[in-house]
Protein backbone atom coordinates (compact mmCIF):
# COMPACT_ATOMS: atom_id res chain seq x y z
CA UNK A 1 0.00 0.00 0.00
CA UNK A 2 1.37 3.36 -0.93
CA UNK A 3 0.14 6.28 1.10
CA UNK A 4 0.71 9.99 1.59
CA UNK A 5 4.32 11.03 1.86
CA UNK A 6 5.68 7.78 0.42
CA UNK A 7 3.68 8.32 -2.72
CA UNK A 8 4.94 11.90 -2.98
CA UNK A 9 8.55 10.80 -2.53
CA UNK A 10 8.15 8.10 -5.17
CA UNK A 11 6.71 10.70 -7.53
CA UNK A 12 9.72 12.97 -6.91
CA UNK A 13 12.07 10.06 -7.61
CA UNK A 14 10.16 9.25 -10.77
CA UNK A 15 10.49 12.80 -12.09
CA UNK A 16 14.14 12.87 -11.09
CA UNK A 17 14.62 9.70 -13.12
CA UNK A 18 12.90 11.26 -16.13
CA UNK A 19 15.01 14.42 -15.88
CA UNK A 20 18.24 12.43 -15.54
CA UNK A 21 17.35 10.12 -18.40
CA UNK A 22 16.53 13.02 -20.72
CA UNK A 23 19.48 15.27 -19.86
CA UNK A 24 22.30 12.75 -19.36
CA UNK A 25 22.78 11.98 -23.09
CA UNK A 26 23.50 15.68 -23.76
CA UNK A 27 26.41 15.63 -21.32
CA UNK A 28 29.73 14.08 -22.20
CA UNK A 29 33.14 14.85 -23.56
CA UNK A 30 31.48 17.78 -25.24
CA UNK A 31 28.01 19.11 -24.60
CA UNK A 32 25.43 18.56 -27.27
CA UNK A 33 22.77 21.21 -27.53
CA UNK A 34 19.19 20.17 -28.34
CA UNK A 35 19.38 22.14 -31.61
CA UNK A 36 22.10 19.78 -32.88
CA UNK A 37 19.90 16.75 -32.49
CA UNK A 38 18.24 16.80 -35.87
CA UNK A 39 20.77 18.47 -38.16
CA UNK A 40 22.49 15.24 -39.16
CA UNK A 41 25.81 16.37 -37.77
CA UNK A 42 28.40 14.21 -36.05
CA UNK A 43 26.74 15.20 -32.79
CA UNK A 44 23.48 13.65 -33.93
CA UNK A 45 25.24 10.35 -34.49
CA UNK A 46 27.06 10.52 -31.16
CA UNK A 47 23.84 11.34 -29.38
CA UNK A 48 21.68 8.60 -30.82
CA UNK A 49 24.12 5.78 -31.46
CA UNK A 50 26.47 6.20 -28.50
CA UNK A 51 25.04 8.22 -25.67
CA UNK A 52 21.36 7.24 -25.60
CA UNK A 53 22.03 3.48 -25.54
CA UNK A 54 24.73 4.03 -22.94
CA UNK A 55 22.46 6.01 -20.64
CA UNK A 56 19.75 3.42 -21.07
CA UNK A 57 22.19 0.63 -20.24
CA UNK A 58 23.37 2.49 -17.15
CA UNK A 59 19.81 2.95 -15.96
CA UNK A 60 18.89 -0.69 -16.52
CA UNK A 61 22.06 -1.91 -14.80
CA UNK A 62 21.67 0.43 -11.84
CA UNK A 63 18.02 -0.32 -11.28
CA UNK A 64 18.51 -4.07 -11.70
CA UNK A 65 21.44 -4.28 -9.31
CA UNK A 66 19.67 -2.12 -6.72
CA UNK A 67 16.52 -4.22 -6.94
CA UNK A 68 18.55 -7.42 -6.49
CA UNK A 69 20.46 -5.95 -3.57
CA UNK A 70 17.24 -4.98 -1.85
CA UNK A 71 15.82 -8.43 -2.49
CA UNK A 72 18.87 -10.23 -1.10
CA UNK A 73 18.94 -8.04 1.99
CA UNK A 74 15.32 -8.91 2.77
CA UNK A 75 15.60 -12.55 1.84
CA UNK A 76 18.74 -13.22 3.87
CA UNK A 77 17.72 -10.77 6.59
CA UNK A 78 21.22 -9.41 6.34
CA UNK A 79 22.12 -5.81 5.52
CA UNK A 80 25.38 -6.97 3.93
CA UNK A 81 23.80 -9.28 1.37
CA UNK A 82 24.04 -8.16 -2.23
CA UNK A 83 24.86 -9.71 -5.62
CA UNK A 84 28.52 -9.48 -4.69
CA UNK A 85 28.64 -10.94 -1.19
CA UNK A 86 26.83 -13.97 -2.56
CA UNK A 87 29.67 -14.68 -4.95
CA UNK A 88 27.79 -13.88 -8.14
CA UNK A 89 30.16 -11.15 -9.27
CA UNK A 90 33.28 -13.22 -8.69
CA UNK A 91 31.65 -16.09 -10.56
CA UNK A 92 30.95 -13.76 -13.46
CA UNK A 93 34.44 -12.28 -13.34
CA UNK A 94 35.91 -15.74 -13.40
CA UNK A 95 33.83 -16.68 -16.42
CA UNK A 96 34.85 -13.51 -18.23
CA UNK A 97 38.52 -14.01 -17.39
CA UNK A 98 38.46 -17.54 -18.80
CA UNK A 99 37.14 -16.29 -22.15
CA UNK A 100 39.75 -13.50 -22.22
CA UNK A 101 42.54 -15.97 -21.46
CA UNK A 102 41.36 -18.37 -24.12
CA UNK A 103 41.50 -15.52 -26.57
CA UNK A 104 37.87 -15.90 -27.51
CA UNK A 105 36.95 -12.80 -29.45
CA UNK A 106 33.81 -12.23 -31.39
CA UNK A 107 30.19 -12.43 -30.50
CA UNK A 108 27.14 -14.63 -30.47
CA UNK A 109 23.68 -13.11 -30.93
CA UNK A 110 25.11 -9.66 -30.24
CA UNK A 111 26.73 -10.77 -27.00
CA UNK A 112 30.51 -10.98 -26.89
CA UNK A 113 32.06 -14.22 -25.68
CA UNK A 114 33.28 -12.35 -22.62
CA UNK A 115 29.67 -11.55 -21.79
CA UNK A 116 28.59 -15.12 -22.30
CA UNK A 117 31.43 -16.33 -20.08
CA UNK A 118 30.39 -13.84 -17.41
CA UNK A 119 26.77 -14.91 -17.62
CA UNK A 120 27.71 -18.56 -17.23
CA UNK A 121 29.95 -17.76 -14.26
CA UNK A 122 27.19 -15.77 -12.57
CA UNK A 123 24.68 -18.51 -13.19
CA UNK A 124 27.08 -21.11 -11.82
CA UNK A 125 27.68 -19.37 -8.51
CA UNK A 126 23.96 -18.62 -8.22
CA UNK A 127 23.31 -22.32 -8.80
CA UNK A 128 25.47 -23.10 -5.76
CA UNK A 129 23.35 -20.85 -3.57
CA UNK A 130 20.20 -22.23 -5.18
CA UNK A 131 21.24 -25.84 -4.65
CA UNK A 132 22.15 -25.20 -1.05
CA UNK A 133 18.77 -23.63 -0.37
CA UNK A 134 16.74 -26.37 -2.01
CA UNK A 135 18.78 -29.43 -1.05
CA UNK A 136 19.31 -28.45 2.54
CA UNK A 137 15.93 -27.24 3.61
CA UNK A 138 17.15 -26.26 7.04
CA UNK A 139 20.04 -24.17 5.71
CA UNK A 140 19.93 -20.96 7.65
CA UNK A 141 20.30 -17.59 6.00
CA UNK A 142 23.66 -17.20 7.62
CA UNK A 143 24.81 -20.51 6.12
CA UNK A 144 23.79 -19.31 2.68
CA UNK A 145 25.57 -16.02 3.10
CA UNK A 146 28.68 -17.73 4.41
CA UNK A 147 28.67 -20.18 1.51
CA UNK A 148 28.29 -17.20 -0.82
CA UNK A 149 31.39 -15.64 0.68
CA UNK A 150 33.25 -18.95 0.42
CA UNK A 151 32.27 -19.22 -3.26
CA UNK A 152 33.37 -15.65 -3.72
CA UNK A 153 36.81 -16.38 -2.29
CA UNK A 154 37.07 -19.54 -4.35
CA UNK A 155 36.40 -17.75 -7.61
CA UNK A 156 38.62 -14.84 -6.60
CA UNK A 157 41.60 -17.09 -6.09
CA UNK A 158 40.97 -18.87 -9.39
CA UNK A 159 40.84 -15.43 -10.95
CA UNK A 160 44.11 -14.40 -9.31
CA UNK A 161 45.72 -17.61 -10.50
CA UNK A 162 44.59 -16.92 -14.05
CA UNK A 163 45.87 -13.38 -13.91
CA UNK A 164 49.18 -14.69 -12.58
CA UNK A 165 49.70 -17.09 -15.45
CA UNK A 166 48.38 -14.79 -18.16
CA UNK A 167 50.32 -12.40 -20.34
CA UNK A 168 50.58 -8.73 -19.40
CA UNK A 169 48.10 -7.81 -22.11
CA UNK A 170 45.48 -10.34 -21.06
CA UNK A 171 46.05 -9.48 -17.44
CA UNK A 172 45.35 -5.81 -18.09
CA UNK A 173 42.29 -6.75 -20.11
CA UNK A 174 40.99 -8.75 -17.15
CA UNK A 175 41.72 -5.98 -14.64
CA UNK A 176 39.98 -3.45 -16.86
CA UNK A 177 36.94 -5.68 -17.16
CA UNK A 178 36.84 -6.12 -13.37
CA UNK A 179 36.50 -2.37 -12.89
CA UNK A 180 33.14 -2.42 -14.63
CA UNK A 181 32.11 -0.11 -17.38
CA UNK A 182 29.26 0.80 -19.63
CA UNK A 183 31.11 1.18 -22.91
CA UNK A 184 28.06 0.17 -24.84
CA UNK A 185 28.46 0.04 -28.58
CA UNK A 186 24.84 0.17 -29.54
CA UNK A 187 21.35 -1.04 -28.94
CA UNK A 188 22.18 -4.65 -29.71
CA UNK A 189 23.73 -5.26 -26.29
CA UNK A 190 20.82 -3.63 -24.51
CA UNK A 191 18.37 -5.72 -26.47
CA UNK A 192 20.32 -8.86 -25.66
CA UNK A 193 20.10 -8.31 -21.89
CA UNK A 194 16.67 -6.72 -21.77
CA UNK A 195 14.50 -9.88 -21.92
CA UNK A 196 16.37 -11.45 -18.99
CA UNK A 197 16.39 -8.30 -16.91
CA UNK A 198 12.73 -7.52 -17.54
CA UNK A 199 11.61 -11.08 -16.73
CA UNK A 200 13.62 -11.01 -13.51
CA UNK A 201 12.31 -7.60 -12.53
CA UNK A 202 8.70 -8.60 -13.09
CA UNK A 203 9.20 -11.59 -10.80
CA UNK A 204 10.76 -9.42 -8.09
CA UNK A 205 8.09 -6.73 -8.38
CA UNK A 206 5.29 -9.30 -8.09
CA UNK A 207 6.92 -10.77 -4.99
CA UNK A 208 7.51 -7.46 -3.21
CA UNK A 209 4.88 -8.09 -0.49
CA UNK A 210 6.43 -11.50 0.21
CA UNK A 211 9.77 -9.79 0.83
CA UNK A 212 8.23 -8.00 3.80
CA UNK A 213 7.27 -11.36 5.21
CA UNK A 214 10.62 -13.03 4.52
CA UNK A 215 12.24 -10.16 6.39
CA UNK A 216 10.13 -10.88 9.48
CA UNK A 217 11.33 -14.50 9.53
CA UNK A 218 10.64 -17.70 7.65
CA UNK A 219 8.37 -19.23 10.31
CA UNK A 220 6.27 -16.13 10.68
CA UNK A 221 6.11 -15.72 6.90
CA UNK A 222 4.95 -19.32 6.53
CA UNK A 223 2.33 -18.89 9.24
CA UNK A 224 0.98 -15.91 7.29
CA UNK A 225 0.43 -18.05 4.22
CA UNK A 226 3.57 -17.21 2.25
CA UNK A 227 4.97 -20.10 0.20
CA UNK A 228 8.45 -19.52 1.57
CA UNK A 229 10.39 -22.15 -0.37
CA UNK A 230 8.75 -21.39 -3.70
CA UNK A 231 9.11 -17.64 -3.24
CA UNK A 232 12.81 -17.91 -2.38
CA UNK A 233 13.52 -20.11 -5.38
CA UNK A 234 11.67 -17.78 -7.72
CA UNK A 235 13.56 -14.80 -6.35
CA UNK A 236 16.92 -16.53 -6.69
CA UNK A 237 16.03 -17.37 -10.29
CA UNK A 238 15.09 -13.74 -10.91
CA UNK A 239 18.38 -12.59 -9.40
CA UNK A 240 20.36 -14.91 -11.65
CA UNK A 241 18.61 -13.53 -14.72
CA UNK A 242 19.07 -9.91 -13.69
CA UNK A 243 22.59 -9.96 -12.28
CA UNK A 244 23.91 -12.46 -14.80
CA UNK A 245 22.86 -10.43 -17.81
CA UNK A 246 23.86 -7.07 -16.31
CA UNK A 247 27.31 -8.25 -15.22
CA UNK A 248 27.75 -9.88 -18.61
CA UNK A 249 27.30 -6.55 -20.38
CA UNK A 250 28.65 -4.02 -17.87
CA UNK A 251 31.14 -5.99 -15.80
CA UNK A 252 30.99 -6.17 -12.02
CA UNK A 253 29.81 -2.74 -10.88
CA UNK A 254 30.01 -2.54 -7.12
CA UNK A 255 28.29 -0.39 -4.54
CA UNK A 256 24.96 0.13 -6.35
CA UNK A 257 23.45 -3.17 -5.25
CA UNK A 258 24.60 -2.90 -1.67
CA UNK A 259 24.12 0.77 -0.92
CA UNK A 260 21.21 2.07 -2.98
CA UNK A 261 18.64 -0.04 -1.07
CA UNK A 262 20.09 1.24 2.21
CA UNK A 263 19.85 4.82 1.05
CA UNK A 264 16.21 4.18 0.11
CA UNK A 265 15.56 2.56 3.48
CA UNK A 266 16.75 5.74 5.16
CA UNK A 267 14.54 7.92 3.02
CA UNK A 268 11.50 5.66 3.00
CA UNK A 269 9.99 3.28 5.53
CA UNK A 270 10.82 -0.38 4.99
CA UNK A 271 7.70 -1.36 3.12
CA UNK A 272 8.88 -3.29 0.11
CA UNK A 273 5.97 -2.28 -2.11
CA UNK A 274 7.41 1.24 -1.78
CA UNK A 275 11.05 0.28 -1.34
CA UNK A 276 11.02 -1.79 -4.54
CA UNK A 277 10.07 1.02 -6.94
CA UNK A 278 12.24 3.42 -4.92
CA UNK A 279 15.34 1.21 -5.18
CA UNK A 280 14.62 0.64 -8.86
CA UNK A 281 14.47 4.38 -9.60
CA UNK A 282 17.28 5.41 -7.27
CA UNK A 283 19.63 2.70 -8.56
CA UNK A 284 18.98 3.77 -12.13
CA UNK A 285 19.46 7.47 -11.39
CA UNK A 286 22.61 6.78 -9.39
CA UNK A 287 24.32 4.74 -12.07
CA UNK A 288 23.38 7.14 -14.88
CA UNK A 289 24.88 9.99 -12.86
CA UNK A 290 28.01 7.97 -12.11
CA UNK A 291 28.39 6.98 -15.74
CA UNK A 292 27.96 10.58 -16.83
CA UNK A 293 30.65 11.56 -14.35
CA UNK A 294 32.85 8.77 -15.69
CA UNK A 295 32.58 10.34 -19.13
CA UNK A 296 33.25 13.87 -17.94
CA UNK A 297 35.73 13.84 -15.05
CA UNK A 298 38.92 13.16 -16.98
CA UNK A 299 37.59 13.93 -20.46
CA UNK A 300 38.51 13.22 -23.20
CA UNK A 301 39.52 9.99 -21.45
CA UNK A 302 36.92 7.92 -19.64
CA UNK A 303 37.01 6.37 -16.21
CA UNK A 304 35.63 2.93 -15.38
CA UNK A 305 32.23 3.50 -13.81
CA UNK A 306 33.01 1.01 -11.03
CA UNK A 307 35.63 3.43 -9.76
CA UNK A 308 33.16 6.29 -9.71
CA UNK A 309 30.27 4.55 -7.93
CA UNK A 310 32.09 4.06 -4.65
CA UNK A 311 34.09 7.28 -4.97
CA UNK A 312 30.92 9.38 -5.02
CA UNK A 313 28.53 7.00 -3.32
CA UNK A 314 30.74 6.17 -0.36
CA UNK A 315 30.95 9.64 1.21
CA UNK A 316 27.25 10.26 0.52
CA UNK A 317 26.31 7.02 2.22
CA UNK A 318 28.52 7.76 5.22
CA UNK A 319 26.92 11.19 5.52
CA UNK A 320 23.45 9.58 5.56
CA UNK A 321 24.69 7.08 8.13
CA UNK A 322 25.68 9.87 10.48
CA UNK A 323 22.48 11.80 9.87
CA UNK A 324 20.11 8.93 10.43
CA UNK A 325 21.08 8.27 14.02
CA UNK A 326 18.50 10.56 15.58
CA UNK A 327 15.67 9.10 13.52
CA UNK A 328 15.99 5.60 14.97
CA UNK A 329 16.12 4.04 11.55
CA UNK A 330 17.58 0.56 11.49
CA UNK A 331 19.85 -0.51 8.70
CA UNK A 332 18.45 -3.99 8.27
Amino acid sequence: MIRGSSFFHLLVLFFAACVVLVTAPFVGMDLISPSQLFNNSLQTTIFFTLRVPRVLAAFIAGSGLALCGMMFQAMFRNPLADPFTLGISSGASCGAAITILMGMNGALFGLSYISIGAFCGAALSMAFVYALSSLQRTASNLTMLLSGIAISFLFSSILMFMQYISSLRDSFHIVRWLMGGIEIFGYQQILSMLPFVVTGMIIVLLKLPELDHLLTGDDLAKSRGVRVGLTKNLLLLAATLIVGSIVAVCGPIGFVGLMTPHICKMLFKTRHTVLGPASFLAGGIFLVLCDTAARVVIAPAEMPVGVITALFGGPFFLWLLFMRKAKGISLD
Partner: protein
Amino acid sequence: MNTQSSPIIETKNLSFAYNGRMVLQGISLAIEKGQTWSIIGKNGAGKSTLIKCIAGLLPVPAGTVLVNSIDILRMKPRERAKVISYVPQAAGRVHASYTVHDYVMLGRFPYQGLMAISNENDRKIVLDALQLTDVAHLKDRLMTTLSGGELQRVFLAGAVAQQSEILLLDEPATFLDPLHQEMIRKTLDRIHIEFGTSVITITHDANAAISRFTNLLALVDDRLFYCGTTTDFRQQCPAILTDIFSVGFEEARCSSTGRTIIVPGETP
Protein backbone atom coordinates in the same frame (compact mmCIF):
# COMPACT_ATOMS: atom_id res chain seq x y z
CA MET B 1 -21.05 -27.38 23.85
CA ASN B 2 -22.08 -29.88 21.26
CA THR B 3 -20.23 -33.06 22.15
CA GLN B 4 -20.65 -34.34 18.58
CA SER B 5 -18.44 -31.60 17.16
CA SER B 6 -14.96 -32.65 16.23
CA PRO B 7 -12.04 -31.00 18.00
CA ILE B 8 -10.55 -27.91 16.41
CA ILE B 9 -7.07 -29.41 16.68
CA GLU B 10 -6.31 -33.09 16.86
CA THR B 11 -2.90 -34.71 16.71
CA LYS B 12 -2.55 -38.45 16.28
CA ASN B 13 0.63 -40.16 17.36
CA LEU B 14 2.70 -37.15 16.34
CA SER B 15 6.46 -37.61 16.36
CA PHE B 16 9.24 -35.37 15.21
CA ALA B 17 13.01 -35.67 14.92
CA TYR B 18 15.71 -33.11 14.20
CA ASN B 19 18.64 -34.78 12.44
CA GLY B 20 17.75 -38.19 13.84
CA ARG B 21 17.25 -36.96 17.41
CA MET B 22 13.71 -37.41 18.65
CA VAL B 23 12.19 -34.23 20.02
CA LEU B 24 8.55 -35.33 20.06
CA GLN B 25 7.24 -38.85 20.47
CA GLY B 26 3.72 -40.20 20.14
CA ILE B 27 1.81 -37.03 20.93
CA SER B 28 -1.96 -37.52 20.68
CA LEU B 29 -4.18 -34.73 21.86
CA ALA B 30 -7.45 -33.04 21.10
CA ILE B 31 -8.23 -29.38 21.58
CA GLU B 32 -11.85 -28.24 21.52
CA LYS B 33 -13.06 -24.92 20.24
CA GLY B 34 -13.24 -22.21 22.88
CA GLN B 35 -10.61 -23.72 25.16
CA THR B 36 -7.44 -21.95 26.15
CA TRP B 37 -4.32 -24.01 26.66
CA SER B 38 -0.98 -23.47 28.29
CA ILE B 39 1.97 -25.65 27.37
CA ILE B 40 4.60 -26.13 30.05
CA GLY B 41 7.80 -28.11 30.30
CA LYS B 42 11.51 -27.79 30.73
CA ASN B 43 13.70 -26.10 28.14
CA GLY B 44 14.24 -28.54 25.29
CA ALA B 45 11.18 -30.64 26.16
CA GLY B 46 9.77 -30.09 22.68
CA LYS B 47 7.23 -27.32 23.37
CA SER B 48 8.27 -25.06 20.50
CA THR B 49 8.49 -27.98 18.10
CA LEU B 50 5.00 -29.10 19.10
CA ILE B 51 3.39 -25.77 18.32
CA LYS B 52 5.37 -25.46 15.10
CA CYS B 53 4.02 -28.86 14.07
CA ILE B 54 0.50 -27.79 14.99
CA ALA B 55 0.99 -24.58 13.01
CA GLY B 56 1.98 -26.62 9.97
CA LEU B 57 5.44 -25.03 9.85
CA LEU B 58 7.29 -28.32 10.07
CA PRO B 59 6.75 -31.37 7.91
CA VAL B 60 5.48 -34.08 10.24
CA PRO B 61 7.31 -37.33 9.48
CA ALA B 62 5.09 -39.52 11.63
CA GLY B 63 1.54 -39.03 12.79
CA THR B 64 -0.94 -36.41 11.68
CA VAL B 65 -2.14 -32.99 12.72
CA LEU B 66 -5.79 -32.34 11.92
CA VAL B 67 -7.25 -28.87 12.07
CA ASN B 68 -11.01 -28.88 11.77
CA SER B 69 -10.58 -32.50 10.63
CA ILE B 70 -8.31 -31.48 7.73
CA ASP B 71 -4.67 -32.57 7.54
CA ILE B 72 -2.69 -29.41 8.20
CA LEU B 73 -0.04 -30.28 5.62
CA ARG B 74 -2.66 -30.60 2.90
CA MET B 75 -4.08 -27.15 3.43
CA LYS B 76 -3.10 -24.36 1.07
CA PRO B 77 -0.78 -21.89 2.86
CA ARG B 78 -3.24 -19.02 2.74
CA GLU B 79 -6.15 -21.19 3.84
CA ARG B 80 -4.08 -22.47 6.74
CA ALA B 81 -3.13 -18.92 7.68
CA LYS B 82 -6.80 -17.99 7.93
CA VAL B 83 -7.27 -20.72 10.56
CA ILE B 84 -4.02 -20.62 12.53
CA SER B 85 -1.81 -17.71 13.48
CA TYR B 86 1.54 -18.05 15.18
CA VAL B 87 3.70 -15.68 17.19
CA PRO B 88 7.23 -17.10 17.32
CA GLN B 89 9.54 -16.83 20.26
CA ALA B 90 12.13 -14.81 18.38
CA ALA B 91 9.51 -12.37 17.14
CA GLY B 92 11.22 -9.86 19.41
CA ARG B 93 13.88 -9.38 16.80
CA VAL B 94 12.70 -6.79 14.34
CA HIS B 95 14.84 -6.41 11.29
CA ALA B 96 13.37 -3.36 9.75
CA SER B 97 11.91 0.05 10.32
CA TYR B 98 8.27 -0.73 9.65
CA THR B 99 5.69 1.50 11.18
CA VAL B 100 3.48 -0.31 13.68
CA HIS B 101 0.53 0.07 11.33
CA ASP B 102 2.41 -1.38 8.34
CA TYR B 103 3.70 -4.25 10.45
CA VAL B 104 0.25 -5.21 11.70
CA MET B 105 -1.05 -4.96 8.13
CA LEU B 106 1.27 -7.85 7.25
CA GLY B 107 -1.18 -10.07 9.15
CA ARG B 108 -3.76 -9.43 6.42
CA PHE B 109 -1.64 -11.23 3.81
CA PRO B 110 -3.76 -14.40 3.56
CA TYR B 111 -6.80 -12.29 2.64
CA GLN B 112 -5.08 -10.12 0.05
CA GLY B 113 -4.48 -10.85 -3.59
CA LEU B 114 -1.56 -10.12 -5.88
CA MET B 115 0.74 -7.34 -4.59
CA ALA B 116 -1.09 -7.46 -1.22
CA ILE B 117 -3.08 -4.31 -1.87
CA SER B 118 -5.06 -3.45 1.24
CA ASN B 119 -8.65 -2.25 1.10
CA GLU B 120 -10.89 -0.34 3.48
CA ASN B 121 -11.86 -3.54 5.28
CA ASP B 122 -8.22 -4.46 5.91
CA ARG B 123 -7.51 -1.03 7.34
CA LYS B 124 -10.51 -1.25 9.65
CA ILE B 125 -9.49 -4.68 10.91
CA VAL B 126 -5.93 -3.46 11.54
CA LEU B 127 -7.22 -0.46 13.50
CA ASP B 128 -9.45 -2.74 15.57
CA ALA B 129 -6.53 -5.06 16.23
CA LEU B 130 -4.37 -2.13 17.32
CA GLN B 131 -7.10 -0.98 19.70
CA LEU B 132 -7.70 -4.43 21.15
CA THR B 133 -4.03 -4.82 21.99
CA ASP B 134 -3.70 -1.27 23.35
CA VAL B 135 -1.18 -0.06 20.79
CA ALA B 136 -3.40 2.22 18.70
CA HIS B 137 -1.46 5.24 20.01
CA LEU B 138 1.76 3.76 18.59
CA LYS B 139 0.41 3.24 15.10
CA ASP B 140 2.80 5.61 13.31
CA ARG B 141 5.86 4.79 15.42
CA LEU B 142 8.70 2.76 13.94
CA MET B 143 9.02 -0.79 15.24
CA THR B 144 12.69 -0.16 16.02
CA THR B 145 11.76 2.49 18.59
CA LEU B 146 9.38 0.36 20.68
CA SER B 147 10.03 -1.20 24.09
CA GLY B 148 9.84 -4.96 24.62
CA GLY B 149 6.34 -4.80 26.09
CA GLU B 150 5.05 -2.62 23.27
CA LEU B 151 6.64 -4.84 20.65
CA GLN B 152 5.07 -7.98 22.03
CA ARG B 153 1.63 -6.37 21.91
CA VAL B 154 2.22 -5.27 18.32
CA PHE B 155 3.09 -8.88 17.46
CA LEU B 156 -0.20 -9.90 19.06
CA ALA B 157 -1.98 -7.24 17.03
CA GLY B 158 -0.49 -8.76 13.86
CA ALA B 159 -1.88 -12.15 14.84
CA VAL B 160 -5.27 -10.62 15.70
CA ALA B 161 -5.41 -8.93 12.29
CA GLN B 162 -4.96 -12.39 10.80
CA GLN B 163 -8.42 -13.27 12.22
CA SER B 164 -7.67 -16.92 12.80
CA GLU B 165 -9.63 -19.33 14.95
CA ILE B 166 -6.46 -20.58 16.60
CA LEU B 167 -3.65 -18.50 18.05
CA LEU B 168 -0.36 -20.19 18.91
CA LEU B 169 2.16 -18.28 21.00
CA ASP B 170 5.70 -19.23 21.92
CA GLU B 171 6.51 -17.61 25.28
CA PRO B 172 4.90 -14.24 24.58
CA ALA B 173 5.62 -12.84 28.05
CA THR B 174 8.86 -14.48 29.13
CA PHE B 175 11.17 -11.50 28.81
CA LEU B 176 8.77 -8.89 30.11
CA ASP B 177 8.39 -7.21 33.48
CA PRO B 178 5.41 -8.20 35.69
CA LEU B 179 3.28 -5.28 34.50
CA HIS B 180 3.78 -6.06 30.83
CA GLN B 181 3.38 -9.79 31.44
CA GLU B 182 -0.01 -9.04 32.94
CA MET B 183 -0.87 -6.75 30.00
CA ILE B 184 -0.08 -9.58 27.58
CA ARG B 185 -2.25 -12.02 29.57
CA LYS B 186 -5.12 -9.53 29.69
CA THR B 187 -4.78 -8.99 25.95
CA LEU B 188 -4.89 -12.75 25.35
CA ASP B 189 -8.01 -12.99 27.54
CA ARG B 190 -9.58 -10.19 25.52
CA ILE B 191 -8.75 -11.91 22.21
CA HIS B 192 -10.28 -15.12 23.54
CA ILE B 193 -13.45 -13.46 24.80
CA GLU B 194 -13.94 -11.09 21.86
CA PHE B 195 -13.38 -13.54 19.00
CA GLY B 196 -13.69 -16.94 20.67
CA THR B 197 -10.13 -17.63 19.52
CA SER B 198 -8.56 -20.81 20.85
CA VAL B 199 -5.40 -19.51 22.49
CA ILE B 200 -2.50 -21.91 22.97
CA THR B 201 0.48 -20.49 24.80
CA ILE B 202 3.86 -21.82 25.83
CA THR B 203 4.73 -20.39 29.23
CA HIS B 204 7.26 -20.80 32.01
CA ASP B 205 5.00 -19.11 34.53
CA ALA B 206 3.47 -21.98 36.54
CA ASN B 207 1.03 -19.70 38.33
CA ALA B 208 -0.31 -18.28 35.11
CA ALA B 209 -0.47 -21.76 33.59
CA ILE B 210 -2.69 -23.14 36.35
CA SER B 211 -4.91 -20.11 36.79
CA ARG B 212 -5.37 -18.33 33.47
CA PHE B 213 -6.13 -21.18 31.08
CA THR B 214 -8.90 -23.76 30.87
CA ASN B 215 -6.54 -26.57 29.92
CA LEU B 216 -2.95 -27.53 30.40
CA LEU B 217 -0.47 -29.60 28.49
CA ALA B 218 2.87 -30.66 29.94
CA LEU B 219 5.76 -32.21 28.04
CA VAL B 220 8.49 -34.23 29.74
CA ASP B 221 11.33 -35.72 27.69
CA ASP B 222 9.60 -35.38 24.29
CA ARG B 223 6.44 -37.08 25.53
CA LEU B 224 3.03 -35.94 26.65
CA PHE B 225 3.09 -35.99 30.43
CA TYR B 226 -0.18 -34.29 31.21
CA CYS B 227 -3.02 -33.25 28.94
CA GLY B 228 -6.25 -32.17 30.52
CA THR B 229 -8.15 -29.54 32.42
CA THR B 230 -6.37 -27.05 34.61
CA THR B 231 -8.82 -27.84 37.44
CA ASP B 232 -7.70 -31.48 37.56
CA PHE B 233 -4.08 -30.39 37.29
CA ARG B 234 -4.44 -28.12 40.29
CA GLN B 235 -5.59 -31.05 42.42
CA GLN B 236 -2.23 -32.68 41.82
CA CYS B 237 -0.20 -29.56 42.52
CA PRO B 238 2.47 -29.03 43.57
CA ALA B 239 3.74 -32.63 43.32
CA ILE B 240 3.07 -32.89 39.58
CA LEU B 241 5.01 -29.70 38.90
CA THR B 242 8.01 -31.25 40.58
CA ASP B 243 7.73 -34.22 38.20
CA ILE B 244 7.59 -31.89 35.22
CA PHE B 245 10.34 -29.46 36.12
CA SER B 246 12.58 -31.63 38.38
CA VAL B 247 12.50 -28.79 40.87
CA GLY B 248 10.61 -28.74 44.16
CA PHE B 249 7.47 -26.59 44.30
CA GLU B 250 5.58 -25.37 47.34
CA GLU B 251 2.18 -23.82 47.75
CA ALA B 252 2.05 -20.54 49.59
CA ARG B 253 -1.07 -18.79 50.77
CA CYS B 254 -1.05 -15.05 50.49
CA SER B 255 -2.12 -13.74 53.90
CA SER B 256 -3.90 -10.63 52.63
CA THR B 257 -5.79 -11.98 49.59
CA GLY B 258 -6.08 -15.63 50.60
CA ARG B 259 -4.88 -16.64 47.14
CA THR B 260 -2.71 -19.72 46.78
CA ILE B 261 0.36 -19.36 44.65
CA ILE B 262 3.06 -21.78 43.70
CA VAL B 263 6.70 -21.05 44.34
CA PRO B 264 9.81 -23.07 43.53
CA GLY B 265 11.17 -24.58 46.71
CA GLU B 266 13.68 -27.20 47.79
CA THR B 267 14.86 -29.46 44.99
CA PRO B 268 14.10 -33.08 45.92
